[in-house]
Each structure stands twice: as C-alpha cells, then as structure tokens.
C-alpha cells in the first residue's frame, strides 16, 4: 500500500478529495485472522469515539486492547488448550488486509528498506471491526465460524464487509457460507467484498460466484521487486523474490538439486522435495530447484541460497534465505551455464525495486471466470492491486516459512490483497454517497473501471469490468441497481422455489410465473454475459435499467466499442429528467457460431452524456 493507492489514483492527504466526517463514521468489518492492534496502522490518535450507529463489542480476549480505530473484536475460532483465546492476529493476514482497507497513513514504512513509503488504507479515517475466524491452530478458517461472523457483523451495523477467504471451488448458494452471509448483509444494505481466489490462470476457477458479492481479481502495480543472480561467466539473470539478505555479491558453488541427492529419484530431487537433498552435497552452496515450492528444504540442509524455477514467476515472495525465482528461459540459461563448466558458481543479490508506469497486468494466480455456478454472471467483477503489497503485519508471526525475523510490515501477494483495496474504494465512494445501496456502489466501481486490453487468454474472465478507478467511481453518472426483490427474482429463475425461497427471503412469497422464467442474464448487473451453444448462430437479449445519479436533465447516448458482436441497443438515447430518474433499455447481441479458438467475443457498451462514461462489458462465450 505504499505504492498501490497512488497507482490507482487515490493520492495521499489533500491530493484526493475526501469527506472526512462521513469517512470517520464508516465502519469496515474485516472477517479474517484477527488483527495486531498495537500497529501504528491501527492507532487511534486523533480519532473520536465510535460512531453512534455502532452496536458491536470488544471481545478480543485477555490483553486485547480495542480503541477508537479498532472499535470491535469478536473471536469465532475454537478455544485450544494452552493457547490464549484472543483476536490477536497469529497469521499476519488479518492485519495486512485491515490496514490495506482502512489503515492509518504511517510514514517511512518498508520491509528492510524495500517498498519504502507511507503505508495507508483506502479510507484511513474509517473504523475497523475485527471478526476473527482463522487461526493456524485450525489450519484455516471454519465456515461455521464465518457464518457467525456475518451474523454479528450485520447486526453490529458495519457499513461494509471485506473477506479475503474462499473455498477451493464455487458452490451452490445454499451451501456457500460466504454467499449466505453476504445475501443477508445485502438485504441490510451492507456490501460484501470478497477475493476471487488464487487458483488462476486456469478458467472457471473463481470461487466467489454470487451476484450480491463484489468479487475481486488481482493485478500488479507499477512497482516490482527483482532479484538478480550473477553467474560465474558474468551473465546476469533476473528473477523474482523479496530478498533482503545481502551476500555482498560473493559467488558460491552451484549444485543442481537433481545431483544433490542420494535417496530420491532425479525428478523429486530436482524439485528439492523434502528429504531428498543430501546435506554433504549442498552445504555452503547455492542449490538449483526446479520449483520454488520447497526451497526451504535447501536451507534446512545448509544451502547458502537457492535459484528456483517457476512458470508463473510474476509476483515476488518473501523467503527466509536468499532466493531468486526465475522464469523457465532464465532458469535454462543457468542450467546451460552449469553444463558448460566444471565448477559453476553464482551470486544471488539483494532485491532491487523497479518502477515502470504501465497498465496493470492480471496476476497469473488470480482466479478466472467463467462463473462455474451461474454462467451468465461475469466473475470476477473487478481487478485491483494484489501483487507485492506491503501492509501491516503481526510481529508475532514470521514473514515466511522458517523465518526468524519479526516485522511490523510485510509484503504479500494474492487476491487477499486486492480485495481490501476494493473494500477501501467502496468505503471511499460510500463516504460521498452514504445512502447508496450495495449494488449502486458495486455498479459505480465497475462501470468506471479502467478498461484493460490484455494479451491474456479471455481477458474478460480475468479482469471483469477492468481495473479499479476510485476517483471516477465517485461520479459514475448512472448506476445499475439490484435490490433484494431483484435478487429474489434471480433466485426464482434458478428454481429456488417454495420453501427455500420463503425461508431465505423471510417473506411468505413464492415465485410468480414471470419470476420463474427470469433469466440470470436479466439481473440488473453492471456487466452483461451470456453463455451460448458452440458453433450455432446466437441472438441474446439483456434487459437493463439505469438510475440517474449524475446531473438532472441529462441525455445519454449509447455507443458500442470493440464490436466483434452485432449489438443493438434500444433505445440508444436516454433522457433523464431528475436525480434518481430510471430508464430501461434492451441490448440484443447476435453473431455467428463461436468455435474452438474463438470461444469468447466481447464488446463494451458505453452510455455517455459527454461528461460521464458508463462502461459495461458485454461477453458472449461458448460452452466448450
């Protein structure tokens, strides 16, 4: 966060317009691994008492101090004998995400000199309510605890929930804890922001699938950490890691994992698999590992450093000893150098920071659409910085496996990090429009996102509507609203009928005939997506309604760009008289059959009054 907020355009201090009094009244519920309350990011210097609307408590456990910044704490992790039952963060993750969303601005933060700058959240004046559901003692986060956290957070009157947790795959709503909790939050006007998952780049790996959840993918920023390795023949290869260990450029012998084992097959030894490396063969050397997965094994066996390979080396991670993670071509350069000399040597250098102002690129790990549960709802919705983010951490937790260091700020990568960025932006938007519903805030952020032209396969399934653009999101012009009854109709269309619908909605309603025919793609969503049979001509229609939140007496004209599709918008001119005036339109998309290799076609519908540009992706893809 010392660079990511500047990167997305939310400058520090007076350079970004703020609404301090409302921002200070905003409460962000963080469902995560707890928080390290003594961090400067969570000091309450200058904060008044909690907002009047606050109905929560501070049940952080013994010696856990809440304050006027961290105003609430509840613990849902099971009591484990001999371990203090506290909301104290034993994983570092909760402190990191909470400070990314709403941490104070803290000057001169760095990770041993790297990523130096002012760490801050999206809404530094907002309050934080902590709901601890994860702990190393339970190896993760229990879903029954998560549901309880939603039960309390909603009743405690938080404004927004950020949860960087997910399952291994998308689930049907009635078994998806986060979808259940988020539905009831939405009903109470609370937006839930959720990480998309880190199972990319494979398709259909997004784990946060409900339309009433704001799902966030991860991209990089204009700053990256690189770690060079200088080979004995003078060649330098550039790898990724956050290496703060300075070997002073000294060159050490290199040994390949494959040839440093006396008891494993060469593949396992090449991967530096646990138990495979022979201490006598690696001690005092740099070990080459075919994967970054087990590099600590080399350290256990006395290696000085490691050079590893990763096909997805597009984010730098912290290790407990000098490591450089190379892409395959660079790794092969090292291998060929090793084969060219009897006594290969190399040096692994300290990491350097490189800046290059460029468009954000989706992180390879970021989970992708299409939506495995609801094909016609595009997920992820939006992308935000998620790679190499420095933010508050818990000094009681080592910053990497078998690491002896203790840090107050650390560098993490994942959709866990991009999620609180969007939560911070949502709170920022809400501070200007406190009465906006969750869907209006989500729409504002999606339709004002930076468009991303990407070389990645099926970019729409990677980026969603694009990259978050906080300043524009405050003035979206038009929004797509979807309230509880819209979502009830959506559920009817998914044949949630009778008992289930009645119970979920809490109303004695059952689906009308019209609602039972409701198509998911007709949910008033800010993006438009349709899955069609392959190789057949298609013609799909989307019905949408926009609400005027820009200026009275304005006229919007429709424009379709990137039209590999034949798109008709009827009507294509909307005249909106007053604020909150609504107008409906229909988008009809037709095209020839989609076939392998061209399974996705997309366009963008942009409504503009010359000042606002309300952009929605239109994505049609073939069931393969």
């Amino acid at each position, binding site marked *: 966060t010392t660079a990511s907020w500047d990167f997305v355009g939310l400058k520090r201090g007076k350079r970004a317009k703020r609404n301090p009094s409302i921002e200070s009244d905003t409460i962000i519920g963080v469902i*995560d*691994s707890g928080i390290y309350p003594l961090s400067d990011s969570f000091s309450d210097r200058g904060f008044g008492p909690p907002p009047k609307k606050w109905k929560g408590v501070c049940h952080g456990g013994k010696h856990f101090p809440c304050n006027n910044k961290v105003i609430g704490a509840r613990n*849902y992790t099971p009591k484990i004998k001999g371990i203090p039952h506290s909301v104290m963060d034993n*994983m570092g*993750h909760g402190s990191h995400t909470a400070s990314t969303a709403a941490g104070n601005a803290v000057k001169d933060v760095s990770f041993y000199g790297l990523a130096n700058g002012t760490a801050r959240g999206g809404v530094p004046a907002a309050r934080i309510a902590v709901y601890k559901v*994860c702990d190393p003692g*339970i*190896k*993760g*986060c*229990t*879903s*029954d*605890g*998560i*549901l*309880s956290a*939603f*039960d*309390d957070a*909603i*009743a405690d009157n938080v404004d927004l929930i950020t949860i*960087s*947790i*997910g*399952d*291994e795959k998308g689930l049907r709503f*009635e*078994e998806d*804890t*986060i979808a*259940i*909790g988020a539905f*009831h*939050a939405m*009903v*109470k006007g609370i937006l839930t922001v959720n*990480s*998309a*998952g*880190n199972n990319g780049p494979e398709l259909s790996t997004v784990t946060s699938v409900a339309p009433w959840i704001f799902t966030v993918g991860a991209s990089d920023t204009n700053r990256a950490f690189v770690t060079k390795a200088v080979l004995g023949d003078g060649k330098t290869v550039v790898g990724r890691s956050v290496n703060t260990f300075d070997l002073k450029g000294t060159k050490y012998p290199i040994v390949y994992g494959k040839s440093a084992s006396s008891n494993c097959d060469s593949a396992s030894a090449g991967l530096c698999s646990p138990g495979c490396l022979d201490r006598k063969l690696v001690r005092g050397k740099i070990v080459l590992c075919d994967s970054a997965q087990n590099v600590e094994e080399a350290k256990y066996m006395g290696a000085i450093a490691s050079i590893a390979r990763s096909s997805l080396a597009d984010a730098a991670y912290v290790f407990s000893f000098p490591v450089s993670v190379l892409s395959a071509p660079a790794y092969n350069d090292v291998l060929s150098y090793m084969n060219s000399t009897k006594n290969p040597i190399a040096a692994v250098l300290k990491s350097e920071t490189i800046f290059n102002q460029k468009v954000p690129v989706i992180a390879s790990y970021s989970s992708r659409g299409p939506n495995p549960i609801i094909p016609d709802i595009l997920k992820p919705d939006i992308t935000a910085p998620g790679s190499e983010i420095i933010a508050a951490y818990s000094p009681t937790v080592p910053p990497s496996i078998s690491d002896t260091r203790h840090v107050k700020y650390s560098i993490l990568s*994942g*959709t*866990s990090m991009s*999620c609180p960025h969007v939560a911070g932006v949502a709170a920022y938007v809400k501070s200007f429009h406190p009465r906006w519903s969750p869907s209006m805030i989500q729409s504002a952020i999606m339709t004002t996102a930076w468009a991303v032209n990407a070389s990645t396969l099926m970019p729409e399934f990677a980026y969603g509507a694009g990259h978050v653009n906080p300043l524009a999101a405050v003035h979206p012009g038009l929004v797509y609203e979807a309230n509880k009854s819209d979502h009830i109709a959506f559920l009817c269309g998914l044949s949630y009928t009778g*008992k*289930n619908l*009645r*119970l*979920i*909605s*809490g*109303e004695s309603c059952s689906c009308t005939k019209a609602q039972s025919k409701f198509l998911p793609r007709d949910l008033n969503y800010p993006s438009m997506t349709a899955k069609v049979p392959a190789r057949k001509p298609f013609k799909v229609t989307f019905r949408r309604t926009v609400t005027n939140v820009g200026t009275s007496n304005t006229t919007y004209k429709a424009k379709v760009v990137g039209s590999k599709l034949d798109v008709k918008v009827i009507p294509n001119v909307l005249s909106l008289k007053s604020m909150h005036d609504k107008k409906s339109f229909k988008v009809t998309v037709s095209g020839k059959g989609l076939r392998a290799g061209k399974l996705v076609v997309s366009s963008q519908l942009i409504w503009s009054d010359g000042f606002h540009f309300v952009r929605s992706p239109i994505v049609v893809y073939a069931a393969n």
Partner: protein
Amino acid sequence: AKNDQEKQVYIVYMGALPARVDYMPMSHHTSILREVTGESSIESRLVRNYKRSFNGFAAWLTESERQILTNMENIVSVFPSKTLKLQ
C-alpha cells in the same frame, strides 16, 4: 462410507429470521436439535447459533440426522462446516 454414528459439524441454515416478535431462535434451534437427536441435553451437540441477522445453527450431527433435518419444513439447507482458506 461414513460410519453412520460418526458425527461432524453441520451448518443448519434456516434463512431469514421470522418477523414475529415472539420468535425465539435459540429455543427453536434447541427444540429442533432435541427432536432430531432424541437427546434432552443438546449442549454437547450445539456449536453455535445464528440468531441476530439470519436464522440457523451449527451442531455435531450424524449423516442420518442431517437427512432428517434436510426434509424439515423450516430448514433451507444442511451442509458440512469446512475449513476455508485465506487467499
């Protein structure tokens, strides 16, 4: 196949809280648990109640108890509590 008497934590989701002011979620959950387990004391079964913003509870149940609950009129779904991951 799981031994039928083996218990695990299930989430029993009951949807929105009934609007009736006299509705007492926790006693309702207790009576459901007593009915489905046949046990008068359910303390060792109950893990937690959901009672402030929506309706439901988590409890140690066997597979056959889960099936009985799934068919009950005021229950939306019964599914195993899992360990989710930080991302």
